[in-house]
């Protein structure tokens, strides 16, 4: 009995490790299959006619599955610490929910017909809903999860409509038969519209984003890492499938529209991120910004796909894919580190936090790497992908098309503006939270757990690795895009058309050298430097409430952009709250009508089912 209790107590740990091992296996298998190349189709037929599970493996899906599996493995390791610390009642339940969620993401990426896709897509949505709802006693979580589930299902409805559009044109539901189909103009427009609404709802495009900044902060941190780092990339994967694999030709305006949506999304996301005072809210809005960057790359590549300019299209697609990988790495890292801070301090309000670096120095260094990666500082990975994107945007001016000449410089300047504000909000994030003194009494019981340090540290290493040596990633990306990006051994990346080149390895070495030199000079040579406390304005021993506050930090930008968004009146919030309320009320009344509590009515349902079945068997039998 004691043995049983012991086993059941620690079973969740065993499960976590098992799943982690499974993901590592999947990750290695992905790499092996990718190098081997080729496409595979796997199908399982069921007892029901017309319903088969169909899976399709090619290099694009392998790339995404690799990302999911890598992050999933690390996430499980991190969750070991996090769950132990939070001490949930139902540990096995949350472990299983999370891992089935990850597996369903992998299966969505693999699925190759409508039935399989919708099945796993729904499993993914519903499990993430439950995970958002995990702390269901908090009012905020409850509201966020309701908005999430309603919006995600509206999205699914639009996705189904776009699938129906394909079905009407091809008379088949297999994705494999949708490759390179040419549709007429009208259907292309409809499918485009439905796909933007459907997948955009999940990815968090501007106007469809409302669930994202609500749901991500309230979920357990490792779940936020999964949702933000991986789940919102899956609609992007479907976009790439739609517009680079399925539909052969489409007008240039599609790409322009996507580009504009992307620019607006990233600007909106970062403006909101800069004024957030809660750790995870800031990260959630920053996810929105990064989705914007990804979507700008996607739109650019769509423009040049429809213009048949293959080399720019592949450059922009490479930037998109690279940024998807980067964002999954550093956003997972940041959410995990934020989770560690929150579990230790029991608050995620920046106006209470401060001075985390004093009691968690290792975690602070790791977070700093993630933050620097987020704002695209050179030796780290964010820089490479944004550089590629800038190259794509600037290179597009070589093509003489009036629309692109107008839109792409604007997009580039918005990207630059976004980068600037991202810098500001990251300085705020790191400076206020990790430096200075705590703004409230915060009791730390123990140190940050080793496993969470190892997992976040591993991600930080991955950030540095892909930043300094991006050739390994570019090897995989080059196999997906039609015109490879020229890579000269260790030292240089060249964009197609000899437009620009960069040597990340040399830059990395230079910066590391400069950093070491700086430390050396500060420590041993310079004798005049005096160290003051951070945020103390050069004074000694100021009271902690006199420190620079997060509100003060974001005050200027709040003032400049006060016309753009107001704190109280959020138009999107109003719309979606209204829709959610209406839908849930409707469901409630429907429930009371169907579940009337009358025995007679339940018997009637049974009889109707029986009649329906007999009738169906008569028709199809």
């Amino acid at each position, binding site marked *: 009995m004691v043995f049983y209790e012991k086993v059941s107590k620690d079973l969740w740990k065993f499960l976590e490790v098992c799943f982690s091992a499974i993901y590592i296996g999947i990750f290695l298998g992905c790499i092996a299959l990718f190098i081997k190349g080729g496409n595979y189709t796997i199908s399982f037929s069921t007892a029901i006619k017309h319903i088969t599970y169909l899976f399709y493996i090619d290099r694009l899906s392998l790339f995404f599955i690799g990302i999911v599996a890598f992050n999933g493995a690390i996430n499980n390791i991190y969750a070991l610490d996090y769950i132990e610390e939070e001490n949930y009642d139902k540990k096995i339940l949350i472990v299983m929910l999370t891992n089935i969620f990850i597996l369903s993401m992998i299966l969505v990426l693999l699925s190759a017909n409508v039935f399989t896709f919708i099945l796993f897509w729904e499993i993914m949505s519903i499990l993430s809903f439950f995970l958002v709802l995990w702390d269901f006693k908090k009012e905020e979580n409850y509201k966020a999860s309701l908005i999430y589930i309603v919006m995600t299902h509206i999205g699914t409805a639009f996705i189904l409509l776009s699938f129906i559009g394909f079905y009407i044109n091809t008379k088949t539901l297999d994705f494999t038969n949708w490759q390179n189909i040419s549709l007429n103009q009208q259907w292309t427009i409809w499918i485009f519209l439905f796909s933007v609404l459907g997948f955009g709802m999940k990815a968090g495009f501007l106007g469809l984003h409302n669930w994202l900044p609500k749901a991500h902060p309230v979920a357990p941190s490792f779940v936020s890492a999964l949702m933000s780092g991986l789940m919102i990339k899956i609609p992007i994967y479907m976009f790439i499938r739609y517009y680079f694999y399925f539909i052969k030709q489409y007008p240039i305006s599609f790409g322009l529209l996507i580009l504009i949506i992307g620019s607006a999304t990233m600007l909106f996301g970062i403006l909101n991120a800069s004024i957030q005072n809660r750790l995870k809210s800031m990260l959630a809005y920053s996810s929105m910004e990064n989705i914007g960057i990804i979507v700008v790359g996607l739109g650019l590549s769509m423009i040049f796909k429809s213009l048949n300019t293959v080399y720019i299209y592949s450059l922009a697609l490479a930037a998109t894919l690279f940024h998807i990988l980067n964002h999954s790495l550093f956003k997972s890292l940041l959410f995990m580190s934020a989770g560690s801070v929150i579990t230790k301090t029991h608050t995620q309000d920046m106006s209470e936090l401060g001075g985390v670096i004093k009691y968690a120095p290792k975690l602070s260094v790791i977070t700093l790497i993630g933050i620097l990666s987020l704002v695209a500082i050179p030796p780290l990975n964010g820089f490479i992908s944004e550089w590629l994107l800038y190259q794509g945007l600037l290179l597009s001016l070589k093509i003489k098309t009036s629309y692109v000449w107008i839109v792409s410089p604007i997009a580039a300047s918005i990207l630059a503006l976004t980068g600037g504000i991202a810098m500001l909000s990251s300085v705020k994030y790191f400076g206020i939270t990790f430096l200075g003194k705590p703004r409230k009494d915060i009791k730390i019981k123990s140190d940050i757990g080793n496993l969470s340090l190892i997992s976040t540290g591993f991600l930080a290493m991955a950030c540095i690795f892909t930043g300094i040596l991006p050739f390994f990633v570019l090897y995989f990306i080059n196999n997906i895009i039609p015109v490879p990006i020229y890579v000269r051994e260790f030292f240089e990346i060249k964009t197609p058309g000899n437009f620009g080149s960069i040597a990340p390895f040399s830059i990395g070495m230079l910066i590391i050298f400069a950093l070491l030199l700086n430390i050396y000079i500060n420590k041993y040579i310079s004798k005049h430097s005096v160290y003051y406390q951070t945020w103390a304005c050069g004074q000694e021993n100021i009271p902690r409430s006199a420190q620079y506050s997060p509100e003060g930090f974001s005050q200027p930008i709040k003032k400049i952009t006060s016309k753009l968004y107001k704190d109280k009146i959020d138009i999107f919030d109003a719309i979606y709250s209204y829709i959610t309320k209406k839908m849930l009320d409707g469901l409630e009344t429907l429930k009371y009508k169907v579940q*009337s509590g009358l*025995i*007679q009515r339940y018997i009637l349902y049974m009889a109707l089912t029986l009649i329906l079945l007999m*009738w169906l068997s008569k028709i199809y039998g």
Partner: protein
Amino acid sequence: MNLNISLSEFVEFMAALSLFFAILQTASHRLDFAIKTYTFQSLALSITMFLSVFYYFDYELIISAVLTLLIKAILIPNVMKKITEKIVEDESVKPFINFTYSILICVFIVIFSFYAMSNTFYSVSSSSMMQKILAIAVAIIFVGIFLMFARKKALIQVIGFLTLENGIILGATSTVKGLPLIVEVGVFFDVFVGAIMAGILIFHIKDTFDSLDTSKLSDLKE
């Protein structure tokens, strides 16, 4: 007048009579009438089973027929009658759907059953009698279910359930020449116990709700 009817036609006729009594139940205003109709329905069923013996030459069916007669035509109606006398002050059945519409719906039920069961055994190449009786059995089942959801009183719902059971037995006899004896005895026992249980339950409903109207049970819902 040609009275030269074959055995199979007579079996069909008895089965149809059973269906007729089932439909007659839906037209009954009063509980004691419904119970009497059930008695006749079970009697017709047992005659059908008894005559099937000479059609299939499967003598185990005799036991089934006798058991049907004993339990369904004598024992259960008596139990029901006693319950009715003991607790029911108001004998009306309280319909959700009134009697005219009930009979009309029964017409559609019968049409649907014959439609649904036509050509069911086409490949088995059995007799046409089997097919018709199966359709009748399905119709009886549906009429039983209809009784259960169209009436408010608990007792008539029990009768509806028993009618449904009769339909199942009839279908079993006609298609697979009766179930194995042990199964059939088990089923009879089940039904009998079910009837007694229903009686006890009805007592309790009466106790707690002061009425046999099951639509009042919806108060139990939160």
